[in-house]
Structures are given as C-alpha cells and as structure tokens.
C-alpha cells in the first residue's frame, strides 16, 4: 500500500513537473525576483502534492472500483430487463426502463462534483473576490446540479442513440440567450465553471458509466457512442450557474 502511495506521489510530481519548470524558468530568467514568503509557498506546494497523492490513491482504493462495478451492473441487460425475461424474449428495452441509470447518473454527477477539488478552489476564490456575494456552497451546489442534469441527459442520449451535436448546439443556444439576461458579474465565472467540473473525481466514474451504457445498450458501439458525457457535464453547469445568479437577484429584489 505504501508502495502504491509512493507511486501515485511520483506520478503526481511528474504531472506537476512541466508547470514547475515553466514557473521556475520564468521566475529565475525573466522576473528575477524571489517569490514572497518562499518557504511558506514551497510548503504549500508540497501539501498540494502530498494531498493529491493521498487523494488519488484513496480514490483508486475506495471509489473507482466500486463506482465502475456499479456503473457496469446498473447498465447490464440482466438488471434492466430482469433475469428471467432477458433470455426468453429478446426485446430491446425502452429508454424509460433505464430509470435507475438516470437516478444513478444524477446522484453520482452531483456527489462527485461536490468532492471535486478544483471546483472548491474556484469557489473559494470567487467567494473572496466577490466580497462574499457568491457563496462557496451556493456555487458548488449550482455547478453540481448542472453536472447531475448533464450526465443524466447524456445517458439518455447514449440510450436513445440520438446525435450528440444537436444537444450541444441546443445547450449553446440556451447559454447565449441566458448571457443576454444574466448579471454581468457572474458571466465569466459561469463560463469557467463549465471547465472545472470534470477532473479527478468525476471523469473516471462518468467514463465508466458511458462505456457501460455504450457496450450494453443494444445497437450502440462502445468505440463511437461512449464519448460525449464529459461534454454534457461541462456545458450544463454554465446554464445552472447563470440561473443561480438570476434567481438570487430576483430573490433579492422581491424580498
């Protein structure tokens, strides 16, 4: 176990290496000025590295195996149609028979987003910069609702086999329309929240769900239909974060 942890630590260091080279390079060659509180910053960087190593190793041990098995089991034909009918009648399940898949997509999308460290970082910064107007939990919950809805809708899309780009284009149109009416302060943050949602925790579980669906739903090809869930998970938070700001302003006006 200690060996795995160390391995994850070195992998994290390797990921960070390019960033470190860029920063150290520019710091020493271009800026030529020492960073303030160098020791504290260095210690903080070390905390981030060790923290991420523990975090990733822990996910690998606790969440990913069970999450992947669950995604596989929930999408399996035996679970959807039931064991006894499955072999007797070769019928293709209707999209509504996947109700547990949608429930799982909603729940896992929401809960993994709440645990996503990069979203927490952006929420802390936004809270600080906005002088407390943007709540840390308010933003995180708004984003999590967006991811939950996005992954559920993305699952529906894989099950029904409808073309991905129509959903994405429709989503973009909603974003453009909302941008016209949303408070200007929230717009850049809302756009950012689309990109931060899908990282360490969410992507592996969501990828397993997409792969499970694409390989188990009749007529889908895992190679071609498994993609697209991440795109959904990065689009819908933009909509929900703008909606969150719109509802908050409306609420403040009508209090």
């Amino acid at each position, binding site marked *: 176990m200690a060996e795995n942890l160390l391995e994850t630590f070195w992998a994290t260091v390797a990921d960070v290496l390019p960033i470190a080279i860029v920063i150290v390079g520019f710091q020493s060659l271009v800026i030529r000025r020492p960073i303030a509180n160098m020791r504290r910053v260095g210690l*903080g960087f070390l905390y981030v590295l060790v923290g991420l190593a523990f975090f990733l190793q822990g996910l690998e041990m606790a969440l990913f195996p069970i999450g992947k098995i669950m995604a596989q089991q929930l999408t399996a034909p035996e679970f959807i149609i039931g064991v006894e009918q499955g072999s007797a009648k070769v019928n293709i399940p209707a999209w509504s028979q996947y109700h547990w898949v949608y429930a799982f997509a909603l729940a896992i999308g929401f809960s993994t987003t709440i645990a996503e460290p990069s979203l927490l970082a952006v929420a*802390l910064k936004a809270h600080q910069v906005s002088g407390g107007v943007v709540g840390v939990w308010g933003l995180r919950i708004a984003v999590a609702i967006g991811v939950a809805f996005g992954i559920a809708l993305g699952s529906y899309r894989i099950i029904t086999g409808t073309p991905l780009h129509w959903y994405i284009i429709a989503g973009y149109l909603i974003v453009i329309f909302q941008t016209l009416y949303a408070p200007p302060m929230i717009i*850049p943050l809302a756009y950012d929240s689309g990109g931060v949602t899908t990282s*360490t925790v969410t*992507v592996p579980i969501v990828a397993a769900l997409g792969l499970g669906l694409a390989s188990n739903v009749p007529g889908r090809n895992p190679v*071609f239909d498994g993609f697209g869930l991440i*795109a959904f998970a990065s689009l819908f938070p933009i909509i929900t974060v703008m909606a969150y700001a719109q509802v908050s302003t409306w609420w403040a006006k009508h209090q």
Partner: protein
Amino acid sequence: MFKAFLNTFIGSFYDLLPIIVVIGFFQFAVLQQPIPNLLEILIGSFFVLIGLTLFVQGLEMGLFPLGESLAFAFAKKGSLTWLLLFAFALGFGTTVAEPALIAVASEAAKVAAEGHVIEATQQARTDYAFGLRLTVALSVGFAIVIGVLRIIRGWPVQYLIIGGYIGVIVMTFFAPPEIIGIAYDSGGVTTSTITVPLVTALGVELASSIRGRNPMVDGFGLIAFASLTPMIFVMAYGMIG
C-alpha cells in the same frame, strides 16, 4: 495551525459525504449487494479525506499566492511579450502531460483506427494520439494567451466565448463525424486540479493589478477559454489529419 487543519478535515468530510450516501444507497437498496473489500474501502476513504485536507491547506498557502505573485510580478514588469509567452508556456506545459488527456488521446486513436481514418498499425495509432495531444496542448496555450490579452484589454468575455461557440457549431457540420464526440470531450479534460487554482489566481490578480479592471468581471474566464479552444482545434485536426 492544528485547529485550521481540523476544520479543513471536517469540511472535507462533508464534501465526501454525498458520495458515501449515493454509493451506499445504490449498493444496498438498488443493486442489493454487499460492499466488497470493506477494509480497503475504509482505508481508501481515509486517504481521500487526508488528501483533500492537505490539498485545501496547500491551496491557500502555496498555489493561490504563487499565481498571485506571478501575476503581480508580470504586471509590474510591464512587458506584454513576456507575459504572453509565459501564458502560452503555462497552458501548453500543463496540458501536454495531463494524464486525462493522454487517456482520451489513446482512446481517440483507437476510434480512428476502427473507423479506418488511419492505418490499423501501432505506429499510426501512436502518431495519431501524439498529434492529438500536441494539438490540444497548443490550443490551451493559445487559449491562455487570448484570455490574458482579454484581461489586459478589457474585452467582454461573452463576445469571445459566443464567437467560439459559433465556431464550434459551424465546424461540427464539416468535421468527420467520428471526431466530434472526442472533440467535445477534449474541452473538459484539459484543466487539471493544479492548473485550475494557479490559472484562476493568476487571472484574478492580473485583473486586480491593472487599473480599470474588475477582478470579478475580468479576472475569471481563463478556464473557459481553455475548455473551448480544444474543441475547435481537435475538429480541425480531424479535418486535416
């Protein structure tokens, strides 16, 4: 110090509680199965807790101040060329080695080989995956440059982003169908857990140190560019490749 750690630790526990509830509910109530390897899961969960706690502590101590001090130093130096070079290097450097991107690129090479876009040899696949990674990394470097330029010039973010969306939509109709799903997904996988805090702090501090810029309106938006340009670049890669 210890008290701060304890508070963060408790906060991390609340962050993870929803996952525990969801997994527990689906495992017991829906799938009706016992939890396998309970001990390993408990140890793993404890690791996740410690990891998140350390990460949040390190964020406030290391990553945020680092991003801020870099932005401040570049603003003080006043050289736009160096700032933009740094922006490009940061975007390119953090993306080219991103593990999630490596995974998606090799998956995409598999799709391309099965769709007979490239030859079904190992060499062709490796080349294709590497080309894709390079494309995405270039696009993220480009995105951070545009994003930083926007902060300095004070361009409204929505015109650029909506313009980008229109670009994505137009290209969707011309790009080969098998690349579209990959292109759309590549936007989401580029921004890693270390890049996001660093880039966010950089943008916010840059906006704060330039007169007439508002950190809330002008400081955010860098991540948005970094998730948009890969879609366009990857579709272009599919059309040329």
